[in-house]
């Protein structure tokens, strides 16, 4: 499978602390890569470094063979990155539709065109009936879906999902899992940081396990969940 995204030797340092140490990953279209690890393992930091929201110490990132290592986050978005934030960050003063319009205007020149694109995405995530509600008023599950809608409205080639399953009740979780699967079925490359193992096991083609900023295991969901180092990292040793 040709690579859509490649990240080689990503290292992120905060002062003297190495938050992510020499981690590499690659992702093809339609592929789902799961990123797991205990709290503080550097998952979100890696995520932010790849998407351009955290400065990298060293490493190289390519999107469709184009080197994007030094590009700022908004340029990576323009080239095909879509991302959600772990703590949802809607534009609170805007309505649900307007939130998605902001992203839709990236590719749509005219208002009517942007509105059509935004409504399409809202229908896809099941928020169309909330389009004119202030974003501030949405509950958690709907705020998550709005994050997704905003990420999808930039028409990404790779979508980065940062713990979008966390805190969802079982039916909402099932829906979200089905939704992420449908994204990969459309050919989108998906990189997800997730704590919910159920989602990781069901969805991921490939899993990377981080602990203390290092990649400690990599493979299919089945391989990594039976890996001793992984169990050790999660449960600790005596």
């Amino acid at each position, binding site marked *: 499978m040709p690579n859509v995204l490649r990240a080689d030797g990503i290292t992120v340092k905060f002062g003297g602390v190495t938050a992510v140490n020499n981690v590499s990953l690659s992702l093809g279209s339609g592929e789902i890569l799961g990123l797991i690890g205990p709290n503080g393992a550097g998952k979100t930091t890696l995520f932010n470094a790849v*998407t351009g929201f955290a400065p990298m110490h060293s490493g190289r990132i390519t999107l469709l063979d184009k080197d994007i290592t030094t590009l700022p*986050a908004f340029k990576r978005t323009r080239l095909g990155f879509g991302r959600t934030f772990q703590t949802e960050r*809607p534009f609170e003063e*805007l309505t649900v539709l307007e939130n998605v319009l902001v*992203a839709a205007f990236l590719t749509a020149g005219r208002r009517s065109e942007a509105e059509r694109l935004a409504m399409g995405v809202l229908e896809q995530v099941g928020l169309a009936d909330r389009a004119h509600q202030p974003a501030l008023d949405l509950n958690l599950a709907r705020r998550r879906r709005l994050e997704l809608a905003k990420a999808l409205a930039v028409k990404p080639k790779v979508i980065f999902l940062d713990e979008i399953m966390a805190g969802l009740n079982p039916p909402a979780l099932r829906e979200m899992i089905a939704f992420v699967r449908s994204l990969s079925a459309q050919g989108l490359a998906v990189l997800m940081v997730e704590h919910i193992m159920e989602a990781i096991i069901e969805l991921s083609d490939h899993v990377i396990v981080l602990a203390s900023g290092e990649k400690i295991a990599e493979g299919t969901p089945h391989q990594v969940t039976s890996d001793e180092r992984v169990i050790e990292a999660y449960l600790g040793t005596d």
Partner: protein
Amino acid sequence: MIKHLIGLGVLLAVGIAYPAIFPNNLTIAISVLLFAGWATSWDLLGGWNGQVSLGHASFVGLGAYFVAIGQSQFGLAPWWTMAMAAAFAAVLGYFWGQLTFSLRGPYFSLSTIAVAEILRLVAINEEWLTGGATGVFIATLPEPFGIDLFSRTAQFYMALAFAAMVIAIVIAISRGRFGYQLRAVREDEDSAMASGIDPTATKLKAFMLSAALTSIGGGIYGIVLAFIEPHVIFALLLSVQIALTAIIGGRGTIWGPAVGALVLVGAGEMFRTTFAEANMLIYGILILVVVLFLPRGIVGELARRHIRRLYAKRAQG
């Protein structure tokens, strides 16, 4: 959209008839219109884009000085010097923004105070050009189509055209791509970047446009004053009044700054004539009431309630 265009039509209709109906109240109306235009220009940056400037007197002063110096020293007509002032203000906004938009929080606002202060000092010290602390006097003006630009009626119509133009520009921007980029950057810069928006470029554009528009109003103000003194035109008080007008009326709304101008300038004048010495007290109380009970400003609060009501109705039925 239609609503706003109707509003603009009403403003123009009332404005065009006004001098015939109230020929003795033109000066106050000119003030209201200039403040409406300035506050609306300020709001492009301060309200829609969330970058609070306390230095917009800089641009008012630039416009006024360009018109006055252009006329008195070079014999240039005000329309040329206003266009030059707008271009100069945009360039100044660009460099100023380049220097300061990496500052977050109140630091940008603080830096804006400094710029007006620098311009005031330049105006005082470069006497050969600006007349120094004494100021510049406009003795003659051209008479396009036989119109006397020194007449209050002509000045009123200029101020009306200025206010209407700025409001029309904001109406046009508010629904399009740039309008949403402005708001997205105001709400959350990271989230805006995730939507492919360059926050610094957006702020620079907003600042340049805001500065250019403000300076055009400044040029008209120069004609109205006919005598420009640096400590009056580059005063911090003027910068604060412009910001306050927009904030009281409603930041980030199309009509808020204009309503703010009507309330603050209009009421301010009324208080001054009715209550004499007590007017600043009442002015202060008015500001306090708005800040305490209408934190989004007059129009901002009304708009929010309207949206809530609409949504509640839709949710029920």
